[in-house]
């Protein structure tokens, strides 16, 4: 048994075997590590406890607990696809008909997978203490890079004929769909608590951006890489940026509210 083994035991919280205890008895450093009492001597004062009780119970009303992860994820995905159908049908489905079968399967397949993983990531973010199955940052990176690469592979043409003229129409449609869907998804998630509001805003913004990309994929028959990468896929970073700002505002508002609540109790 070495000092490294002892540190491994301590870091994993395993009980110390007889061999480990024998090592500790003979090693002053391991002895100090094993016996370090991290507890501080100070204790809470009764008047502080009264303030905390007031903070926790002031204006208490009954609340409905959050649905399960599975239910929430399913709700988000269902809302997403209902929104796409509702937004794309009035604006036309020329994009759907312009794709070849292989392109249809791959492009929509990639978007669908992105929707599934992003929805799961969002639900993780709004549930404090949830088990982490996905690393949010990596999920967004892989999805974003994957969609761009797939677009480059599926749509080879880099023609920029009437680039801005055709582009700004798609931009307006995509941006308004992303914004509308962001409001819808935020309302659906209102029972959750984003422990890290900026990060939650980013991933929700990405999800809303995906809805813009999906609506444009159904509506727009222009299948050039330059057009799609610029005017469709820009919804993703745009959504993330707006989401981050929204998260920052939520964080600031919560901070101010807590400050006011603390000042109110102090008076």
């Amino acid at each position, binding site marked *: 048994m070495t000092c490294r083994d002892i*540190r491994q035991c301590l870091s994993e919280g395993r009980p110390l075997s007889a061999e480990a205890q024998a090592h500790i008895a003979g090693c002053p450093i391991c002895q100090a*590590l094993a016996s370090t009492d991290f507890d501080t001597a100070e204790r809470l004062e009764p008047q502080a406890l009264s303030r905390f*009780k007031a903070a926790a119970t002031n204006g208490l*009303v009954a*609340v409905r*607990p*959050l649905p399960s992860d599975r239910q929430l994820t399913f709700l988000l995905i269902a809302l997403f696809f209902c929104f796409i159908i509702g937004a794309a049908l009035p604006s036309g489905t020329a994009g759907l008909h312009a794709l070849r079968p292989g392109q249809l399967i791959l492009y929509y397949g990639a978007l669908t997978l992105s929707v599934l993983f992003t929805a799961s990531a969002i639900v993780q973010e709004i549930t404090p*203490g949830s088990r982490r199955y996905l690393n949010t940052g990596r999920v967004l990176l892989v999805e974003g890079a994957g969609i761009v690469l797939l677009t480059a592979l599926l749509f080879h043409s880099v023609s920029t004929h009437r680039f801005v003229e055709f582009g700004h129409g798609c931009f307006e449609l995509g941006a308004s769909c992303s914004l509308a869907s962001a409001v819808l998804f935020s309302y659906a998630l209102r029972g959750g608590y984003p422990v890290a509001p900026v990060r939650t805003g980013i991933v929700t913004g990405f999800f809303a951006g995906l809805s813009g990309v999906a609506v444009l994929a159904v509506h727009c028959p222009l299948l050039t890489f330059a057009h799609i990468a610029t005017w469709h896929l820009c919804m993703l970073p745009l959504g993330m940026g707006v989401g981050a700002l929204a998260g920052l505002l939520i964080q600031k508002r919560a901070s101010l509210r*807590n400050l006011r609540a603390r000042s109110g109790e102090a008076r």
Partner: protein
Amino acid sequence: MPVDAAKVGKSRQGQDLERLMVRYQNADAQAGVALVEVLSPPLFQFFRAQTRNRQDAEDLLQDLWLRVHNARASFRPGEPVLPWLYSIAHRVRVDRYRKNRRVWQHEVVDESTLLNAPAQARAAASDVTALLSQLPDSQRELLIMLKVSGLSLEEAARATGSTVGAVKQKAHRAYEKLRKLLGGAQ
């Protein structure tokens, strides 16, 4: 009622906490008061071990209870309370750290000075607060969760939004650093 925070989890006390949380969600103020009484002492220890003084720790704890009040709908009956609670506490600590970053940095003792100090100074520096202040925030917080608050590795992983493997690795690095601070290489 006195609570041994180190044993709270899937034990009977853990289940009692879950019942209190459900009642709290149903606007039972007495349940809220009971939660504060039971959980504030270990949470105070959690914050006190990471702050400069008692006042800061109490401020953080009050901030936490305000957030718990706002976040209570996000607790799911049947899930353990401690990871939920400590994930909010972790966030309170991170937000406050970002706000007061410069103040903490001024108070960190220089590691090389500590290692080169004579034996008496090293003995004095084995004082817990001085030791802990040498660790990066995330390592310090993790050791406090595991050793002071009594969270399991799984609970600490959920509270910090990472995996059990990452938590074990971080704890191991923290102990490695403490070993160096306590007295030289093997």
